[in-house]
């Protein structure tokens, strides 16, 4: 069989970032083709391009040998390309059938929906591809695996010949993964083609016919499972060489400023996110936390900040029990927090910069004087942050929302590093910022470390982790699976640890 999809030289640039460059991909008809890569390797950008959500700046895409230009998902659907998003797009209070036909309702005269016809077609699809779904069940009653099947049925209902699945296994428990894989096998046996994104090497090796590896926005190789192994894939994903750490004065104290002891955390729905996690951070040390996103990093951070209580075990932050101490007191004890989602967690977007300088520091001098807000001090120190961190703004009365993302981030980092914090929780501190801003932020984190502060650096950027960290802890599936020395670590060790494979 020939190639159903051919991608050649696709490039996509955003201001300051190249998301995709020189991407080439050949997908055989009737195959399961996996795409693997680190966070930010450009997988999602490529998938969005194929689904018509993003228009590439250069390159060609051929479907069934025909060169196409995808302007919208409608174009993609018309060509037989369907996408199952990682976060399901279903209406909870509608039935499975209603969800499946939503947006593509078969109708009479354009407004009378032909439910019976739709039901028949859906049942036929379910039977052909062995998808276990009930058209009349309310989506609200369905579990995650069932919802995913509804999403797949939805795409098939629209006549898709090529299915794109964006990290389909990220939300599933092991049994559901097995079930999904059986479904996928069924689909390709019936002649469809599946393109699926993953970071998990075991899965990819067990299900895929072809594996394409992406790194730093481009496709680096395509392998067959029989001809490769986990080690090779991990090395391809992470790259041949890891950056060397920035040399700094090592000044690690004996004092433990952050300690996780056998910490577990379960969500309200009972799903365990963190499992018996142990971690310790000392003053004067930068501890990198590496891991594929969604392995418990966000929860770990919220536990430190007192935003979530541990289900069992203890989280000690500067001698305080974070499970019972209010966030305010943790902050006041000297913990700085650079949140991952800066616009939602780090800023008041429609407030001026000087008010944003107060945020997180409103419970102590100098930002507060008794019950009063100290506007003069806030304005003055905002000016200092703007200068020291090169925040591009005409003044401190400008609304945070008027700044670009990188400048917002510089302002947040500047704010959080004020007042000599002892512990700095930095989540993706340089995500989406340009190289110059990255250098400023790194420099300040190193200075804080030299001054004796401990830094927990949660990052998906390997260069950042290797450049700054004294130690790198790897989190997988809610536990710390290994602690690595950045000077002695090989890419494959890190890649294997991050993807859950036990190193030899």
């Amino acid at each position, binding site marked *: 069989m020939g190639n159903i999809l051919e991608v050649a030289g696709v490039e996509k640039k955003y201001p300051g970032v190249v998301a995709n460059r020189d991407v080439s991909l050949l997908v055989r008809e009737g195959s399961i083709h996996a795409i693997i890569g680190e966070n930010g390797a450009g997988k999602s950008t490529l998938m969005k391009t194929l689904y018509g959500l993003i228009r590439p700046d250069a390159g060609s895409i051929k479907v069934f040998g025909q060169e196409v230009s995808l302007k919208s998902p409608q174009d993609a659907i018309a060509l037989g390309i369907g996408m199952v998003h990682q976060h399901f797009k279903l209406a909870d209070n509608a039935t499975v059938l209603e969800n499946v036909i939503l947006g593509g309702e078969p109708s009479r005269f354009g407004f009378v929906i032909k439910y019976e016809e739709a039901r028949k077609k859906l049942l036929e699809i379910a039977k052909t591809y062995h998808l276990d779904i009930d058209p009349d069940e309310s989506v609200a009653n369905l579990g995650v695996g069932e919802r995913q099947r509804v999403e797949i049925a939805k795409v098939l209902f629209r006549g898709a010949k090529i299915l794109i699945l964006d990290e389909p296994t990220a939300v599933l428990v092991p049994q559901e993964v097995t079930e999904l894989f059986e479904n996928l096998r069924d689909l390709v046996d019936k002649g469809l083609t599946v393109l699926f994104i993953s970071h998990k090497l075991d899965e990819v090796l067990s299900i895929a016919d072809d594996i394409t590896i992406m790194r730093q926005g481009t496709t680096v190789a395509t392998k067959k499972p029989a001809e490769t192994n986990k080690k090779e894939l991990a090395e391809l994903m992470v790259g041949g060489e890891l950056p060397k750490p920035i040399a700094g004065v090592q000044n690690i104290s004996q004092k433990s400023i952050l300690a996780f002891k056998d910490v577990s955390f379960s969500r309200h729905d009972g799903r365990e996110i963190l499992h018996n996690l142990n971690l310790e951070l000392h003053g004067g040390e930068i501890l990198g936390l590496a891991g594929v996103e969604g392995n418990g990093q966000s929860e770990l951070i919220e536990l430190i900040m007192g935003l979530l209580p541990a289900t069992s075990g203890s989280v000690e932050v500067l001698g305080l029990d974070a499970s019972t101490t209010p966030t305010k007191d943790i902050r006041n004890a000297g913990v700085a927090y650079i*949140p991952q989602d800066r616009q939602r*967690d780090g*800023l*008041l977007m429609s*407030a001026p910069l000087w008010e944003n300088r107060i945020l997180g520091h*409103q419970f102590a001098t100098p930002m507060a004087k008794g019950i*009063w807000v100290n506007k003069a001090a806030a304005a003055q120190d905002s000016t200092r942050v703007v200068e020291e961190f090169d925040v591009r*703004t*005409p003044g401190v009365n400008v*609304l945070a929302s008027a700044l670009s993302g990188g400048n917002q981030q510089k302002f947040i980092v500047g704010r959080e590093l004020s007042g000599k914090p002892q512990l700095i929780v930095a989540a993706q501190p340089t995500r989406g910022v340009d190289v110059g801003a990255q250098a400023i932020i790194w420099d300040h984190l190193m200075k804080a470390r030299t001054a004796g502060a401990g830094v927990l650096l949660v990052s998906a950027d390997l260069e950042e982790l290797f450049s700054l960290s004294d130690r790198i802890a790897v989190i997988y599936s809610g536990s710390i699976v290994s602690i690595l020395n950045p000077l002695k670590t090989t890419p494959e060790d890190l890649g294997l640890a991050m993807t859950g494979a036990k190193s030899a």
Partner: protein
Amino acid sequence: MKKDRIFWGTVAPLAAVVSSLLLVSIILILRGANPIEIFQVMISYGFDPRNLVSELNQTVAYYLAGVAAAIGFKMLLFNIGIDGQYRMGAFFGAVVGAAVSLPPVLHVLLIIITAMLAGGLWAAIAGYLKVRRGVSEVISNIMLNFIAAAIIAFLLGEELLGILPEGSQNVQTRPIPLSGQMPTFKMFNGEVYSFLFVAIFVGIAYWIMLNKTVFGFNLRATGLSFRAARSSGVNAPGMIFITTVLSGAIAGLVGLGTLLSDTHSYSMAFPSGFAFTGLSLALLGRNHPVGIFFAAFLWSFLERAAPVLEYEGVPPEIVIVMQGTIVLSIVIAYEVVARINLRQQQRAVGKANVDLVKESK
């Protein structure tokens, strides 16, 4: 930049009033009336000293309802329960005021505190349901308005807290003795409630609390972004609860001007509808104490001037149309202004960057 803010903050409500006048003019012309004449009649009647006094007294009540709504708005809360909270405040203020005898100033203070407590506690039910149970405050407050009215009707029974004065059809609470009454003062040859000063004090306290204190900062931060406030160390759910109670406490004061300076007892004749009015006024006054004051006066003025329209052959309901279109236009006007502001700032940021690049070259 500050000048800009004041300029746009004034232009928007004025534009809303003008566009509403235009719309009403069209309706009047369609009815065969001369809009200029009608407006002249309204203005001369409304600014008549006798009418000004009753407008001012009405403004006091509307103003407090507006401030109560504004506190809620700062937290993205839609306090439609102002009606029930005001009733609870006025009723229990009247009951407690009539039951005790205290020296003059203390007596009035006790009534004021009772009214705020009653309004605040009533609002606390909605606050608790929202924070702990996720119930929309709109739904619970609408229910609570009905429940408040029913409870008061029940308690006003003659065997309980109500009396039926001779020659009256209206049951009411026992009258508050002289020591618990508030004087009026002479203005425009009429009697203006001295509760006006309490209202002014509330407005100033509201502004200082919101803009100068850490508490106010936390309140606004939570309203602007729940998650950012929580991450910064604010007990955000707690702030939502406290804000609800605070809004209710101010709402509890709405009926006190009338109670303390005029009727001296609560009866079923106390008007309703303060919730919608309060929300409209907070919107029109941009949650600013001075803005709300002008809005409250405008509302009282329009309502006072409405009946005279009948003599001109125009249905007085035209005033409601006017109020409605003002509120509708103001929502649009403020959104437009907000967008203009953001664009101006973004342009300023862009310009600063370009200048920096030039400098470095």
